[in-house]
């Protein structure tokens, strides 16, 4: 039984030039304790997918629909806003890209942690304070009791993200969504944060959706990966499988444009030419076709169908790709 089951998620935004189909029929499952990577370039729909699951998409101009969006057995789209508010921050939590902008600059760190504890766990006073200090220590912030009265601008980027993680995990959520959580950080700090998340979530059995455009980060952290392009999941599989044998032209392109430290053969980075499609006009064939290097005749004739490549590894691609 998967913790999260997404079936045909469709999120669109009404603009004066037409409806933008940001998420165009996404389906996947997330098992308990699994770390799922969501990879793709800007505009691929990965962030919107996450926001749709949390139902944080502003409606209007947004509109979220799905055949099924089941979290822990409950249909999220059937919940009222008040019921959703009970879930957010307690059973499902999210951390965002830029910790400086994601923390309220005029409230103390302590205040921002305590309010979640007060809201969802009904903790107050000394008990809440004690728990807040525990949480800060858990994410590795020294002198935690003094830090409670500090403001976000007094912390470094990495520390702020740790605070965000502490806030997110404070009520022991079943699901943690991290949207480009390390993108704005230094590389060395990135590694620390990723390790921290990995350790804490493994300890608690929390499921994670880790969103990134950086394959390297995903490789070190995730169990499974969904590759997204133009609002669809175009490939999905266990991390090793995907890296060994990418099954979609886009995934192949991503790998070709990613520098590798292990230097398997000195080769040039091959960027993916072209631009992603605008998400307003309906796309008949494969959305990646204009930029694909491995397209075959079938690609120009009909939309691609899902093809199973191996156990739990599939791609919507006609091409037979080399390993």
């Amino acid at each position, binding site marked *: 039984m998967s913790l999260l089951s997404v079936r045909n998620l469709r999120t669109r935004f009404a603009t004066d*030039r037409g409806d933008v189909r940001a998420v165009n029929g996404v389906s996947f499952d997330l098992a308990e304790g699994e770390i799922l990577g969501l990879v793709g370039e800007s505009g691929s729909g990965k962030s919107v997918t996450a926001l749709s699951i949390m139902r944080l998409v502003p409606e209007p101009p947004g509109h979220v629909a799905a055949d099924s969006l089941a979290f822990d057995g409950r249909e999220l789209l059937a919940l009222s806003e008040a019921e959703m508010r009970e879930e957010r921050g307690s059973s499902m939590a999210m951390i965002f890209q830029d910790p400086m902008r994601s923390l309220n600059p005029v409230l103390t760190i302590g205040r921002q942690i305590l309010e979640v504890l007060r809201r969802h766990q009904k903790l107050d006073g000394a008990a809440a304070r004690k728990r807040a200090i525990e949480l800060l220590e858990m994410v590795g912030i020294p002198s935690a009791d003094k830090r409670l009265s500090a403001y976000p601008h007094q912390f470094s980027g990495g520390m702020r993200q740790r605070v965000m993680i502490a806030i997110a995990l404070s009520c022991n959520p079943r699901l943690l969504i991290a949207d480009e959580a390390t993108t704005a950080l230094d590389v060395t700090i990135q590694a620390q944060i990723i390790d921290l998340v990995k350790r804490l979530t493994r300890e608690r059995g929390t499921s994670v959706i880790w969103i990134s455009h950086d394959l390297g980060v995903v490789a070190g952290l995730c169990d499974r990966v969904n590759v997204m392009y133009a609002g669809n999941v175009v490939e999905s599989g266990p991390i090793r499988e995907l890296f060994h044998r990418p099954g979609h032209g886009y995934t192949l392109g991503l790998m070709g444009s990613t520098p590798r430290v292990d230097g398997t053969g000195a080769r040039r980075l091959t960027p993916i030419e072209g631009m992603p499609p*605008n998400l*307003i*006009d309906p796309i008949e064939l494969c959305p990646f076709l204009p930029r694909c290097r491995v397209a075959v005749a079938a690609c120009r004739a009909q939309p691609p169908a899902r093809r199973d490549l191996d156990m739990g590894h599939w791609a919507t691609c006609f091409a037979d790709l080399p390993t």
Partner: protein
Amino acid sequence: MADARTLPFQFRGSLVLAARQFPRNRAATVGFVVLLLICLAAALAPWIAPYDPIQIKLAMKLKPPSLEHWMGTDHFGRDVFSRMLYGGRTSLSVGLLVVGFAFAAGVPLGLLSGYFGGKLDNLLMRLVDAFLTFPPLLLAVALVGLLGPDIKNVMLALGLVQAPILARMVRGSTLAVREDAYVMAARALGASPLRIVLSHLLRNMVSPIVVQLTVVFSAAVVAEASLSFLGFGTQPPEPSWGRDMSEARRFLGDAPWMFLAPTGIIAICVLSINFMGDGLRDALDPRAWRTRRSVAAEENGA
């Protein structure tokens, strides 16, 4: 490294483009037309006013608006509509004069201050601070009250308040633009400061200066009315929007049209000027332009 901010635009060509942008803003166009009509009406007052504004006709006093007297009559039997027309000549001309004064005094000062910086800048800005500390209406009252209700004094009084505000704004823009790449390039090419100022700096400040001048205009019209209301400024029996409002106080209950007419006219003027100013601001800012080409580009998902 060039973005729209650093590219100097061809002055004449862009004026044409701006002129085309303006009508797209309906409120601005309405404002402009209304203002134009009022100004024309005021200018042509001697020809189009139905009655002599200062001729006393006690038999006709305090009559409500009717077909003969569109805005009624005042306590001396004078036609309010005619008085409004003539009163506009004073208010609007003072407004325009103040705009001219503020521009002539404020812009060069702001440019000098911003461009050369240093001690001059410090000194000028301290002066500006002092001017702005003085309660503006009281300064005007003092100047006009003590030096005489001459239109020159009114203009001076109102201009002395507006010019520093404009100077400060121009200084700010100058500081911002001064360090831009193309100005450095011009300096490197040996352009003299005067040339840089005139051809580069000023051109890029057209939008904020023009918009600020509309604010100055509407503030000056209101200030002149306030002065006349308080008894300084235009003296009776000359028609004056503010003065007439003051005289209307005794007849508030009996003849509300006496104060409603000038109040309404002033409000309409201020509104028109402000809408027009908003439209000008959008029209003069190249970043806000939506030309046919840019709209088409957007639609193709650029």
